[in-house]
């Protein structure tokens, strides 16, 4: 299989997955959304008509008045296209088409901090914050993980190795959000070093905003790193063990090259493909996990937006956020695959 064909197949699969995800989201949320919107219209129309005494005075018969109200509601429903059910092909098709041209429409309830209800504005405002938090954390995790893992892997059975492995196993069963609560308890209640809420209280236009954001970011980053680096170190350790048994490492050793140089020069280079793959995957994976972590720290990013959108059933925002999250996830899978192929040519040719 050539690279072009490989890319084409992957691209088509990815596109299919994206469409399936969006379709599933619309199917799951659509019916509830319609009910909520229709109730909203009914409420609005009644409030408008009863609020205007001229209209209600012009009717003497209550049945006639009721018919007028119903007629008004129906007109409004029709104008929004809600008269055809949400599962009609036109409406689903229209929604999908709009998403494809990146037109997410307007949010029903939520707005961005600057007050815009355009879904694109909201997403563009939240996304950088989530990326900032999780990318920073993931990079720190991978640096600690690679060095600790390499150290542990080169001295199997040593104290470092045993501590690292035990820590990896133990930390993997701790929910990040619970550690987050403990960290808030420790560092904002017992020792008042960091703020309990991660949302800066000053407006984004303030020149000190970036500094405030970084300060508020400290506690979430420490928490994510604490829980994450153990598993990373363990993975790197296992790769290293495999590589340190290879013949070429024994050869280097026989040539008298120092252990340090072998580990950090030769062995790590060979462990790179799987490590980079996992790095790409964990970057996108962390975005999915952002929903709960951001809820604990009240971090104003994609995760919290997503959760808020679902609790108030804001369909355009849910679809937009799902789209972005899925897109990130798929792109990182593809990048991981390509990187793996680049480092390890055997994969690409399909052998």
């Amino acid at each position, binding site marked *: 299989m050539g690279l072009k064909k490989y890319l084409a197949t992957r691209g088509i699969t990815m596109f299919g997955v994206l469409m399936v*995800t969006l379709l*599933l989201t619309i199917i799951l949320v659509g019916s509830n959304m319609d009910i909520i919107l229709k109730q909203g219209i009914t409420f609005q129309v009644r409030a408008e008509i009863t609020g205007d005494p001229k209209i209600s005075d012009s009717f003497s018969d209550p049945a006639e008045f009721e018919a007028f109200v119903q007629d008004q509601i129906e007109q409004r429903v029709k104008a929004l296209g809600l008269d055809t059910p949400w599962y009609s092909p036109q409406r689903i098709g229209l929604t999908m088409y709009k998403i494809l041209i990146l037109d997410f429409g307007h949010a029903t309830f939520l707005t961005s901090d600057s007050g815009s209800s355009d879904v694109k504005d909201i997403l563009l405002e939240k996304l950088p914050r989530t990326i900032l938090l999780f990318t920073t954390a993931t990079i720190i995790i991978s640096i600690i993980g690679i060095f600790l893992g390499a150290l542990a892997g080169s001295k199997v059975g040593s104290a470092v190795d045993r501590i690292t492995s035990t820590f990896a196993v133990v930390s993997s*069963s*701790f*929910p990040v959000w619970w*550690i987050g609560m*403990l960290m808030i308890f420790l560092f904002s*209640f017992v020792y008042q070093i960091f703020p309990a809420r991660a949302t800066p209280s000053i407006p984004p236009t303030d020149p000190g905003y970036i500094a405030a954001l970084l300060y508020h970011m400290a506690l979430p980053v420490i928490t994510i790193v604490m829980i994450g680096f153990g598993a990373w170190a363990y993975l790197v350790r296992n790769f290293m063990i495999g590589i340190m048994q290879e013949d070429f490492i024994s050869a280097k050793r026989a040539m008298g090259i120092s252990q340090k140089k072998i580990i950090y020069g030769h062995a790590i280079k060979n462990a790179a493909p799987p490590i980079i793959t996992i790095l790409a995957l964990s970057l996108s994976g962390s975005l999915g996990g952002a929903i709960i972590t951001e809820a604990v720290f009240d971090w104003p990013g994609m995760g919290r937006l*997503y959760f808020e959108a*679902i609790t108030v059933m804001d369909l355009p925002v849910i679809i937009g956020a799902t789209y972005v999250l899925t897109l990130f996830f798929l792109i990182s899978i593809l990048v991981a695959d390509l990187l793996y192929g680049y480092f390890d040519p055997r994969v690409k040719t399909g052998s």
Partner: protein
Amino acid sequence: MSSVSASEIKKEFLKSKMGIAGIGILVILIAISIGAAVIIPVETFQQWNNPQNWIFYPKTAIPSWINLFMFEKIPEHKILDEPSVSTISLDEISGVSHQFHVNYVYDDFPSDFIYEFTAKYSGSPLLQISVIRPDGSNIKLLSASLPNTDDLVMHNEKIFSTDGTIKKNLFLQSDKFDFSIEGFSAEDIVFSKSTDNVVLKGDYVFLVNLYGVQKENSIVDSTLIVGGKAFGIMGTDELRRDLAVGILWGTPLALFIGIAVAIGSVVMGLVYGVYAGFKGKLTDESMMRFNDVIYALPVLPFLIILAVTISNSIFLMIGFLTIFGWVGIAKVSRSMALQIKTRGYVEASKMMGQKNSKIIFKHILPQLLPYAFASIAISVPAAITTEAGLSFLGLGDPSFPTWGQILHDANTHGAAARGLWWWIVPPGLMIAITGLAFVFLGNALDVIVNPKLKR
């Protein structure tokens, strides 16, 4: 993959310290589950979200064992519902007397006291409440007649320490105290030394007498609550719930959720993967494409949407978690099936014209069993933490108190920033320990099943 016999697995497993530790924790958790089911009535945990049920409990009370480490003892919350009962008969007047013994040894005043009773009476009997204090003095708290009635009725009433009559009665007895009791609340006076306003430690007796002319007058139900700031082994939360109930009942629920999801997804993935691998060609290709699609779905967002739109019933939740859990196992078992398929005995039985289903169930699946068991153990922690995470977001089944939900309530009431550690630490620790037990088990099994990892 080499096949490993059951006795070999057992032998290897007993050698692994991790495996033994995992089994040990699991046995303790199962014991807790059985204990919870036996000790705590099912009704209590079904009442978890009913505020009525917790009305006598204190708000955010610290676990009472903390007093062992405290120099100044924090008042413990006492719910006394077994008074010593005696009957009184003086000529034509008869009555009942309920006595509550309170051993008060704390360094702070109680937050309040409440007396709740249900009396069966006719006429207009007199209710008298008084306290005999450790220093021997007797303080009258209340003397009031119950509403007049000609028929025999049941009467339920709560008398609070903030009651105006109690205050007035105390004021009339102000000569018993050397300091001015004006401005102090009833509990601060009743539990105070007579010389100055510090706690008088010792045995208090609360006397409740009901006098009447009719013989059938009686107090059916009688509870005295001396409010405190410490309660039980686990403390209580903002909604006055006894956390011990929630945490103990959370154990069987978490085990059930974790194991059900793990078994469900492993069985599903195994059958799917083996079938795809065994059939091969187009069936394999299309089944694996479908697998890829599920694999690429963002799990948590979808689980949230499902919980919000369809239902957050615990049983449906198990189903949803299974839907996303089987994918990886299907991939691995497919590749294993591809290898086993080429072995001589499978080829031979194919040639002999055996049915496909028989070959799969008799020759391929048994080979994958050790892997399946390891996968079940490894899948449990993820299922438990995912469910806990969803509950933490407030999407859990409200009819069952899970650990995730306790933490959700803690988070919405800002427990971490308010320092209510007993509300945060135990549920999370239980989630972590339960996860750890299965991680240990899974790792121990994994080492046996994949000899490559052994070193």
